């Protein structure tokens, strides 16, 4: 029933306007059944809007939503194979934990004994066995979210929608619950669609993810794809820590693209893309791949180098960022694993060379 090659969500041309605000524009998206899918993006980008469209809480301005092959664009939430977990304040405050979890089963008019049995099993699963008779206001934030999860999962819906489910929790708890969510999903095997603006959270849980910003779906792929080979400049800017250079294509040589940045010229592999001369494009390089060469240290071949004026070191625990100024005034960052003791290797204002492997540079046409 839930084979991986099934398609759980298929969205085409989806758009939503709130009056003059275009919250979502022409989104096409496919999510496989049994996937843990994450919608990641900055606040106000339209993630919640997309999730609520899937859940049926708002109606699309244009476009179509197929869930397991069935067009549900016009159906209300209670007629969709989805269930939703909200950020907060969504528990029924006048019901106990067990009543909250059993609510959907009660609506389905299951026999009392069966409801009790299923609720018990679910509370066990989400680790709330001892709290069955508590009222929601007597629960911690993490426990409240577990109740929400239980309430949704007990219905055995095909698709679970989660809107920033961990945003109201503190950092440590968020990390733990992230992993738990992932394991829970693997265990029951249904499709999870999880909205977050937190990169680490997204990377922890996602099989696949989509970047959404300004109402547009920017890019989809696995966490590794998006981190290592982002197609869009926006993705490179949003995920990880990248140095991004904007410039104009000044020449094409085979698969090599020559880009004029004003203060330097880079040559980058086109990676199958087809830029034209004088297009505005961007080049990015992850900051952990950038090295700082001291004065007099000779660059190896295959390294792309730029001269820079050293600024400061920012100690971040595991890594230290070395920030310098380029000739055009932009910052460039090299991130190295911190070495004990010497956090300040370089003199401020020292003229240095920043270098990185040519092959690791990525070209972004958009």
């Amino acid at each position, binding site marked *: 029933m839930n084979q991986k090659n099934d398609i759980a969500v298929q969205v085409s041309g989806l758009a939503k306007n709130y009056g003059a605000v275009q919250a979502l524009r022409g989104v096409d998206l496919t999510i496989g059944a049994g996937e843990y899918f994450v919608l990641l993006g900055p606040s106000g980008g339209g993630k919640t809007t997309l999730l609520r469209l899937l859940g049926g809480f708002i109606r699309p301005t244009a476009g179509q939503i197929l869930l397991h092959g069935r067009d549900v664009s016009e159906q209300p939430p209670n007629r969709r194979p989805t*269930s939703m977990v909200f950020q907060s304040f969504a528990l029924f405050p006048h019901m106990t934990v067990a009543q909250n979890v059993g609510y959907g089963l009660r*609506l389905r008019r299951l026999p009392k004994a069966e409801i009790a049995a299923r609720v018990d099993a679910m509370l066990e699963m989400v680790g709330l066995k001892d709290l069955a008779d508590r009222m929601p206001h007597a629960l911690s934030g993490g426990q409240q979210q577990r109740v929400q999860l239980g309430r949704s999962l007990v219905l055995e819906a095909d698709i679970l929608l989660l809107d920033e489910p961990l945003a109201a929790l503190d950092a440590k708890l968020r990390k733990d619950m992230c992993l738990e969510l992932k394991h829970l999903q693997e265990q029951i095997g249904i499709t999870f669609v999880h909205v977050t603006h937190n990169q680490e959270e997204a990377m922890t849980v996602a099989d696949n993810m989509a970047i959404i910003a300004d109402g547009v779906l920017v890019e989809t792929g696995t966490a590794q794809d998006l981190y290592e080979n982002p197609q869009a400049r926006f993705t490179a800017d949003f995920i990880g820590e990248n140095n991004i250079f904007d410039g104009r294509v000044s020449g094409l040589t085979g698969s090599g693209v020559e880009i004029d940045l004003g203060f330097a010229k880079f040559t980058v592999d086109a990676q199958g893309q087809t830029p034209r001369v004088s297009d505005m494009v961007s080049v990015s390089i992850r900051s952990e791949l950038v090295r700082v060469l001291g004065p007099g240290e000779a660059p190896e071949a295959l390294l792309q180098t730029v001269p820079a004026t050293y600024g400061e070191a920012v100690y971040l625990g595991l890594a230290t960022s070395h920030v310098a100024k380029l000739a055009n005034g932009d910052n460039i960052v090299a991130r190295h694993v911190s070495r004990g003791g010497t956090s300040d290797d370089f003199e401020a204002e020292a003229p240095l060379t920043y270098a990185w492997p040519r092959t690791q540079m990525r070209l972004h046409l958009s």
Partner: protein
Amino acid sequence: MGDDYTRLWTYRLKWLYTLLVVFTLMLPVFYVIYISFNQNGFGARDYVFTFEWYSGIFTDLLLMNALGNTMLLAAITTVLAVPLGLIAAKFYKATGTDRAKLLTVSLLLSPLFVPADILGSALLVFFKNLNIACATAGEWLGVSWFETWFELGYFSALVGLIIYTIPYIFVVILITMGRYKEQQSEAARSCGATAWQAFYQIEFPQIRAGVFSACAFTVILSFNEYTRTSLLKGGYDTITSVLISQMLNEGMSEQSYAMSSLISFIAIAVIGSIIIYTLVHTDRLEREARAKAQPVMSS
């Protein structure tokens, strides 16, 4: 608040002033009640306690008849106006556009700003005109079943009362709804509830106190209303119209004192018990609200 302890006396004085104002506002009513138990009536030197003036009330047929009309009007007004106010409040919360919100709020609250006699007169002439229009249309069409729809009577009085009470209902319910989080309804929908089930199983239990207070207000306000009802009611009597005609014709007779006291008693008792209930109940609500607002951030 540290201030309260350093300036305890000003704090107490302010409390005293507040209570004094409430007491002053109630004083005439208390005085009327006091007089109503005096055998010798208003202004007499000696005070002799008696129930005498009350005993006359319940045997007065005119009065009992008026009481029946008044209660009927109050009951129907409540049954119609509270759902209307509730729907309006829900619409206000649900609608996305500012213009729709502004329209709803100004339409539902502006009756507060239209004085009784002005609204009463306008509605009176409106209904008379409707009545004439219906009669003309009936004559013209040769049918008559709708001719009496808009004659002054229960219907017109009800319209006046609904318009009078709906702002209060709207505000009371809207304020109670303010605490309610819409996500709960959405969560219910995603559990499989229809819109109606989500409303009466999830939202209603949480706004029940507001709806019931609104009902109590509506009953009392319509029971007490004089001006609009008397302009619109047509031929029959209501408690207030009987009372007013008694007061204007005989001055304040002992009977009037007793009747006024009785009506005030009932209102004070109803509202008093709501206030007391709220005092006990809000305590719990507030504690829950605070607990919900700041959940302990650990598992």
